């Protein structure tokens, strides 16, 4: 019996060592970022102690004000939320159609999306800008229109992957649930909202976090497609605010690190909120249970009539 316990403890310790080792490599850059954000430009490269020796929390305040973070943060949030919401709706409609509905050209269109995921367009910035100008998005005097142009562009960036991911989930949806809902008079939109989406929660969580990350960290298209108009508040995202600290020659490292830490916090929070869905919700049992609850609800509603 003792031998067995010893074996179990050693194995447990080894596993923990392994996990902790890898976790350490993940923490070191974060530690360096936070530590540097509390120092000054002169000591940032020379001081290599483990714990920060200075605590210039003022750097965070400076980063916020000098970088005009308030406004940039709001813009980033607007872009991220709009793009993610847009993708979830557009992609899940399309995936639902590919998975469950019939219409001419279905396969061809689906393969187009698959191919689009494979072929990146690194040189597409220029034709995209020309296009957006011709459509009137870039030079419009209305901020909403200019923002909408960027948002639509970013929706497209994440569309292919999201559609393919959601389609695989919708394919797994049990037919009897769908039939039950249809018999009860649910419209296609109703089936989509009440049956398909809840079952695909893990996939939606993945799509949310993946696209949020992309939009939050994106800066190239933002520079090219967004123009500020003098006299009106800026529509630039957070990454633009960070560039202020990374000048052409001078880099204000502590402020930059403070800014980067501030920028990383919302995304980490978003991940904490969504990761439950990704990992737990994938268990088929749970989703089937959801479906059964829905069916029971519909049955009781029908009997009540």
């Amino acid at each position, binding site marked *: 019996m003792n031998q067995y316990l010893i074996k179990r403890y050693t194995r447990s310790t080894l596993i923990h060592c392994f996990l902790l080792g890898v976790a350490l490599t993940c923490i070191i850059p974060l530690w360096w970022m936070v530590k540097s954000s509390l120092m000054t*430009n*002169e000591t940032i*490269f*020379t001081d290599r102690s483990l714990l920060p020796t200075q605590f210039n929390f003022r750097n965070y305040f400076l980063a916020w004000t000098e970088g005009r973070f308030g406004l940039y943060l*709001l*813009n980033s*949030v*607007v872009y991220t*939320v*709009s793009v993610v*919401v847009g993708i979830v709706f557009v992609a899940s409609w399309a995936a639902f159609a590919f998975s469950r509905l019939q219409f001419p050209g279905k396969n061809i269109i689906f393969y187009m999306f698959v191919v689009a995921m494979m072929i990146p367009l690194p040189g597409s*910035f*220029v034709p995209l*800008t*020309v296009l*957006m*100008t*011709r459509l009137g998005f*870039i*030079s419009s*005097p*209305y*901020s*909403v229109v200019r*923002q909408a142009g960027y948002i639509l562009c970013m929706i497209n960036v994440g569309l292919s992957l999201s559609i393919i991911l959601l389609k695989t989930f919708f394919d797994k949806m049990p037919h009897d649930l769908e039939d039950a809902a249809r018999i009860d008079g649910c419209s296609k939109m109703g089936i989509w*909202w009440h049956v398909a989406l809840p079952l695909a929660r893990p996939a939606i969580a993945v799509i949310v976090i993946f696209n949020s990350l992309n939009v939050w960290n994106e*800066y*190239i298209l933002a*520079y*090219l497609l967004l*123009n*500020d*108009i*003098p*006299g*009106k*508040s800026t*529509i630039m995202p957070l990454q633009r605010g960070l*560039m*202020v600290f*990374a*000048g*052409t*020659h*001078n*880099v204000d490292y502590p402020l930059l690190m403070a800014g980067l830490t501030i920028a990383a916090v919302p995304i980490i929070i978003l991940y904490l909120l969504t990761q439950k869905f990704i990992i737990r919700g994938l268990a088929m049992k749970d989703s089937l249970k959801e479906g059964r609850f829905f069916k029971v609800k519909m049955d009781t509603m029908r009997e009540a009539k």
Partner: protein
Amino acid sequence: MKRGLIIVLFLLSLAAPSCSLQKPSDDTVVIWHWMTDRHDVFERLAAEYEQQTGGKVDFQLYAPSDIYSQKVVAAAQAGILPDIYGVLDPKRVFADFIQSGYIADLSDEFKQNNGAWAKTFFPKALAVNRFEENNFYNIPPGIYGVPIDVTNIQMLYNKELLRIAGIQHPPATFDEFLEVINALNRVGISGLVSGWGELWMVNCFALNYAMNIMGEDKVVNTYRGEVPYTDADWIKVFRVFETLAKKKALIVGIVTKINKYAEQDFALERAAFAFNGSWCVNVYHEMNPDLDYGVMLPPRVNLERPMSIWGGAGSSFVVNKSSAHKQQAIAFLKWLTAEKQQSFLSRETRNLPANRFAAGSIPDILSDFAQGMAYATHPTILPLEEDGLVRERFDKGLQAIVIGEKTPEQLARELQELKVRQMARQHRKDGR
């Protein structure tokens, strides 16, 4: 479903604060620039200008500079260039912009009142923005840009580190330089640091020595295809790099350092020499105000010719030809390059002014830089430029020599083969 809609509407309403249904004021001159370090100063100047004249100017910053260039190109294609902007690319691109009608010809403005405006500038500052008669690019001669500061690229030396190695004064020739390097190596101090992770910096250093070794004419003739890269003089140029690498004169990792990191290294006293431009004065002041350093020309290999350095306009602005506010834009640029504003700019940003009458008020180390202007030339002033692909191979080949992966002879052969092919292609294109 309703809840979802409410959420979506709420989120969309967050965009409301940035909404506005007014049209923007039509008389503002919009300027796109890339100079992060000067944005504050520019904004102050704009406010001052509005106070003095009532004219509104909006400076918009798009950094870093490679993204700035992309944005300008994309905007040009889409027809939405601002009133004033900059072209950061080689002269060929500048010429293309002019040919495609994106840049206004300012020659008349400069000629007004017997050339009054032109005379306020250092001649070399204007030369970069000028196209001469019968130029290679077939552009009508004239001045197409306005310089707002002047820079040149020289070598700097850390007086303290040299003293530690027992050197009392900086080297004047290449052989002396190598001896200094030996002394530095003995006390474990790195020799030269430069941003050779950026190809143009490698090119600059190489061309300086090329001009010193063979003179400007031979370099231009090589571009014309009349002199091969396998010529002995070019091998000498390549050998400069090989010697520096072999004698361990270069700081570790120099070929992956972008200029920004190289500047930091010198500021943090990690190397005794730096090869950098006069803008570095501002950087060093920010990072290490007590740095004790001096300016010198790169030490000559060929003592019979002078050393050449790159110098001329540091940053220039051009006016959009189809701008609706062209006159206001030009008026602002004239104000910006007037003596008072130039002195202000120079003091605040620690750069050399383009206006020569403002030169009196520059801090000391910058005046040392200014003295080198006599030796300054600039690749854009040369009658023609090397083909883009050959230049890339040239620069990358020198990087390869520095890390010991290629010999000068190998590079010369490769370059000449490529040059021949590119010349043939150019002939085919011209023949069309």
